[in-house]
């Protein structure tokens, strides 16, 4: 048989089969309210497979499709109601069909007996006894006036046509003259017929072909028996053959309704495996076999997936572009022949344009929605949940996220594994779930989305979570890790141990999946695609796997940089900005924090990585200007750093090629590419490079002020600086806007006040010695100006270099060294550091900065005796804020966490007038406290102000949702006081007003 035609049939069938699972599951969900449209769709799929397979002689496919079709027809006609049993059998049947169609050459050996029995049994069990026979009987039809010609049809099919008032025809087509010479093929004819009816049978008459002595040679006759609503007069419209070739087998207008116009033929001898048609269906056996069958079928279909369907519009575009390209080439040749430079550059431009458009179009053909992978999971989850007696709801999101075909294929197996794991081990049985106060039904969320040039796929379940302790113990007992190493691992590192080969925490490993068994394979597969996987898990609440696929496409825009003579590509998505720092700027922009070089970039302090050092190359710095630096500010999404390179070159679209296996272990490279001149350049992996250079530690330090979720616990981020050489001082990092390095000459003293020129204005400067009894800075040559904002104005605190940032859990002593301008002290690295109180310093140095309004309000009606409940876990901040408030005439009740704040509030219900609370606290967070206050009738009206070290949009939104009236940045004293006063005023104003009104 014609291979091309067969391939077309296979592809078409696969397409039909692709959505069937989802459709069947939807039908089952719908229960009694049958979605006729949908059932019809599935029926048509089975039907068209049956028709085609008959033509290609795929007898087993035809038989199975026919049986499935019969059951589907009964569903469609409402003669049976969809239920799990029917769905199971149908799903198994379609799996088998897919399998056979993917391997058409071996379909003859396929074992379909069990399925055929199950399907027939199903159909039979829903038919009244007197009609059961119709399932196995055939009818003989004769064309009008040609009694000698007999066409035999299964009775069910014929009755179906009868019922819907269709005509039954038989047509004899000659494959050669009627089809091929007219540019058609069998499949197009089938499609035409299926538009308005059904194909009942078709067969190639090979006997005729064999008769060489016949009157007309060179014929390949095909007989199609079909039913359609089209009347005999119009049949020529449907099939383009001479009318004598079409024979009418049944005409409803001439036949008495449903009275059989033909004799019922004797039952055909049933095929051997079909003996027990009347025996009760055995769907259970089929259903049990189904889940394990799925995987095999899938692998088979994947292996065969060497063809791709492309949108016709896109193909047109490609054709046009190919035409354009040829034109451009001709222009180019012409220009070269004439040695015409102008024409050359025009042709070059044109070629450039066409090439990039062509590339776009070609890449688009490779893009596939992730839905093609997702669509199989409803089935996987359902089968597995049934098998394990669990109730699981699957929440699929982001179907449309498009990914490169190769990534889609690569994702399929790892995702299946993880989803199965989630059902098998993540979600507990309904009884267990109820016992721990969860809904019976577990939820698995599978979501894809684009995020910062990456594709993120998440698999989350609300199951029992993973026990990092148990995983760690298991790894230890199996000798996969040493106790010393284990001690250094963080929580998430311990969870990541499940990716080790040979680790399983489940004693009883089921055949479906064992968490730990195969997770190493998942990791290997994802690694191969350059993907990363993270695990987050909370015992009793669930597990989240987050897969990040870094390069969505094989072609990425990249920045080419060089160090000495070597060129490297950095993916453009990782590049934030490019800096050129001239030799004389270097000392202002670069500084050393904790032994590591950092870059000061506007408000940020970024770790700096000298690429040449990393490579072990002796680099002369910038290739353009001696002593200067070229820095690419790059980001991995979670970390940003400065990469010092020799020179920047063009941005190029590069084709990513994988590195050979000798080089797979090098984390700093994401692959290689071939540049325009044919040379190979390595592509840098920004995250891998940072990990290699151990930038993480530096980044954690310098980014402490950006990472408010980390800083929120008991530790403080302090900026250390010197006052006199032997006086170590510190200030909370939260209040620092920027740090500038200056020389003593830059400080101007006028009218007894110090200033420096900064961004075109005079920046007021204060020193600790101005107010506090400490030594003066003296003659230090390297000064640091710590810029902060007090009363809405920028002010600089003058100190001496070096500056450093520490994350400390040191207790802050608020009494020993307390004096005006010094908030307290802390022991840092065995040295006492004085903690500067910048607002107090400024108040003393610039008393006139206090706004008159603030002074007025201080004396205002609500000011005195107003009770504030303050919850803050950091002792230092609590003391600071309490002092501000008390200085402002407020009475402060303070608590170290949400839980004690709540107790305190209940004890002083009538007194507390406003609540000021930190967000991140042990025991009960600020958000939790706010929700509790809002939820209690006694306190629901209480004004609440949230305090955070950094108020981002998200934080504010979350705060508002929890019930906060206001959100303030920690240590912005004026704003906080103003707010508290505002609430105080509102309260005292509204109370009398209500009285007069009432």
């Amino acid at each position, binding site marked *: 048989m014609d291979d091309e035609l067969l391939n077309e049939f296979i592809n078409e069938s696969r397409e039909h089969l692709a959505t069937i699972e989802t459709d069947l599951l939807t039908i089952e969900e719908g229960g009694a309210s049958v979605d006729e449209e949908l059932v019809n769709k599935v029926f048509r799929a089975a039907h068209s497979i049956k028709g085609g397979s008959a033509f290609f002689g795929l007898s087993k496919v035809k038989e199975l499709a026919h049986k499935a079709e019969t059951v589907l027809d009964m569903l469609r006609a409402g003669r049976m109601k969809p239920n799990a049993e029917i769905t199971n059998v149908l799903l198994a049947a379609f799996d088998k069909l897919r399998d056979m169609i993917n391997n058409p050459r071996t379909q003859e050996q396929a074992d379909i007996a069990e399925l055929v029995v199950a399907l027939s049994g199903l159909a039979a069990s829903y038919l009244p006894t007197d009609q059961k026979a119709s399932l196995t009987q055939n009818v003989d039809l004769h064309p009008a006036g040609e009694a000698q010609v007999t066409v035999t049809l299964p009775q069910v099919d014929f009755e179906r046509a009868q019922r819907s008032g269709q005509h039954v025809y038989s047509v004899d087509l000659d494959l050669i003259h009627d089809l091929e010479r007219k540019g058609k093929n069998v499949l197009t004819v089938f499609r035409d017929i299926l538009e308005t009816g059904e194909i009942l049978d078709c067969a190639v008459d090979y006997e005729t072909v064999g008769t060489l002595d016949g009157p007309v040679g060179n014929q390949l006759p095909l007989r199609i028996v079909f039913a359609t609503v089209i009347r005999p007069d119009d049949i020529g419209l449907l099939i383009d053959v001479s009318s004598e070739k079409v024979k009418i087998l049944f005409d409803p207008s001439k036949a008495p309704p449903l009275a059989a116009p033909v004799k019922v033929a004797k039952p055909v001898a049933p095929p051997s495996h079909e003996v027990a048609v009347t025996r009760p269906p055995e769907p259970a056996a089929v259903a049990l076999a189904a889940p394990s069958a799925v995987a095999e079928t899938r692998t088979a279909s994947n292996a065969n997936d060497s063809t791709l369907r492309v949108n016709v519009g896109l193909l047109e575009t490609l054709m046009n572009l190919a035409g354009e390209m040829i034109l451009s080439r001709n222009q180019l040749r012409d220009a070269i022949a004439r040695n015409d430079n102008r024409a050359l550059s025009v042709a070059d431009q044109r070629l450039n344009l066409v090439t990039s458009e062509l590339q776009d179009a070609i890449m688009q053909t490779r893009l596939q929605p992730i839905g093609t992978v997702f669509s199989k999971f409803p089935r996987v989850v359902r089968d597995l949940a049934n098998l394990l007696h669990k109730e699981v709801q699957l929440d699929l999101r982001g179907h449309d996220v498009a990914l490169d075909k190769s990534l889609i294929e690569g994702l399929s197996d790892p995702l299946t594994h993880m989803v199965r794991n989630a059902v098998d081990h993540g979600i507990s049985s309904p009884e267990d779930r109820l016992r721990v106060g969860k809904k019976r039904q577990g939820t698995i969320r599978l979501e894809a989305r684009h995020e910062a040039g990456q594709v993120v796929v998440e698999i989350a379940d609300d199951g029992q979570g993973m026990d990092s302790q148990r995983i760690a113990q298991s790894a230890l007992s199996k000798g996969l890790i040493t106790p010393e190493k284990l001690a250094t691992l963080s929580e998430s590192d311990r969870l990541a141990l499940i990716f080790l080969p040979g680790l399983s925490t489940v004693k009883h490993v089921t055949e479906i999946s064992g968490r730990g068994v195969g997770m190493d394979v998942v990791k290997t597969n994802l690694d191969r695609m350059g993907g990363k996987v993270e695990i987050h898990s909370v015992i009793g609440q669930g597990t989240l796997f987050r897969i990040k696929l870094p390069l969505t496409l094989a072609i990425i825009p990249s920045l080419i940089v060089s160090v000495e003579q070597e060129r490297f590509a950095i993916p453009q998505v990782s590049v934030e900005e490019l800096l050129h720092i001239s030799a004389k700027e270097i000392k202002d922009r670069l500084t050393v924090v904790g032994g590591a070089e950092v870059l000061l970039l506007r408000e940020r302090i970024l770790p700096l990585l000298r690429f040449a050092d990393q490579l072990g190359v002796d680099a002369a710095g910038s290739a353009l200007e001696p002593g200067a630096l070229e820095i690419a500010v790059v980001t991995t999404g979670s970390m940003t750093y400065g990469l010092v390179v020799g020179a920047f070159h063009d941005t190029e679209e590069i084709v990513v090629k994988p590195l*050979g*296996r000798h080089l797979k*272990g090098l984390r700093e490279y994401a692959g290689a590419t071939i540049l325009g001149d044919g040379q*190979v350049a390595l592509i840098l992996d920004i995250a891998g490079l940072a990990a290699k250079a151990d930038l993480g530690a530096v980044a954690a330090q310098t980014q402490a002020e950006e990472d408010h979720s980390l800083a929120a616990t008991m530790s403080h981020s302090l900026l250390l600086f010197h006052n006199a050489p032997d006086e170590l001082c510190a200030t909370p990092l939260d209040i620092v806007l920027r740090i500038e390095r200056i020389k003593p000459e830059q400080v101007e003293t006028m009218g007894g006040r110090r200033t420096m020129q900064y961004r075109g204005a005079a920046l007021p400067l204060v020193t600790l010695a101005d107010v506090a009894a400490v030594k003066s800075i003296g003659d230090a040559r390297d000064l640091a100006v710590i810029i902060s904002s007090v009363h809405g104005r920028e002010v600089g605190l003058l100190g001496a270099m070096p500056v450093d940032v520490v994350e400390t859990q040191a207790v802050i002593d608020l009494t020993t060294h307390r004096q005006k301008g010094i908030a307290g002290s802390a022991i840092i690295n065995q040295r006492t550091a004085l903690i500067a109180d910048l607002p107090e310093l400024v108040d003393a140095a610039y008393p006139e900065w206090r706004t008159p309004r603030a002074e007025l309000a201080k004396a205002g009606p609500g000011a005195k005796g107003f009770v504030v409940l303050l919850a803050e876990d950091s002792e230092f901040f609590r003391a600071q804020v309490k002092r501000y408030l008390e200085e402002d005439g407020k009475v402060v009740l303070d608590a170290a966490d949400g839980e004690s704040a709540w107790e305190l509030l209940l004890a002083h219900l009538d007194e507390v007038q406003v609540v000021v609370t930190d967000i991140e606290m042990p025991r009960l967070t600020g958000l939790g406290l706010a929700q509790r206050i809002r939820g209690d009738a006694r306190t629901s009206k209480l004004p609440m102000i949230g305090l955070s070290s950094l108020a981002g949009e998200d934080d504010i939104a979350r705060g508002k949702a929890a019930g906060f009236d206001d959100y303030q940045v920690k240590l912005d004293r004026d704003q906080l006081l103003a707010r508290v006063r505002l609430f105080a005023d509102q309260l005292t104003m509204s109370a009398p007003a209500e009285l007069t009104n009432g």
Partner: protein
Amino acid sequence: MNIKSKAADTSLLVISFNLGEAVFGIDARQIQEVSRVGAITRVHHAPTEVIGIRNLRGHIVTVIDLRTRLQLGRVVTTPASRVLIVEGLGEPIGLLVDRVADTLNIDPADLQPAPANVNGVQSRKLRGVCRNGRNLVALLDLAAVLQIENAPGPMVAREKLLA
């Protein structure tokens, strides 16, 4: 310069090449092509035997110094140096050698085990030796040569994962 002109069906076509003083050979069927050294891009932090990567008609080829691989020092690239392109586990790999010498027909029956004084690393990578006139040619077992010896064993892999 055939050693023996036996029937072609049993004889083995071998490409012989120099690594320093020694002459080695590889089954010619395993060699896709012999190419000049060309422009090689250095890969920092790669294993010492990896000289770098190069472009071979759009494919990235890892080029390995065969002398380093066999613990025979390093190849000093000269105009006579060549890269033998072979296929190892589905990817092209280039083997840098000092000089390509000849093509020989060898009867596999003439192969003898490597002499006992050949060092351990080499002997494990040899299929055997045979005489070529006055010279000895050591026939390399390509699969053994391409096997990654420092392949991260289970423990190393784990360390990496946890790092």
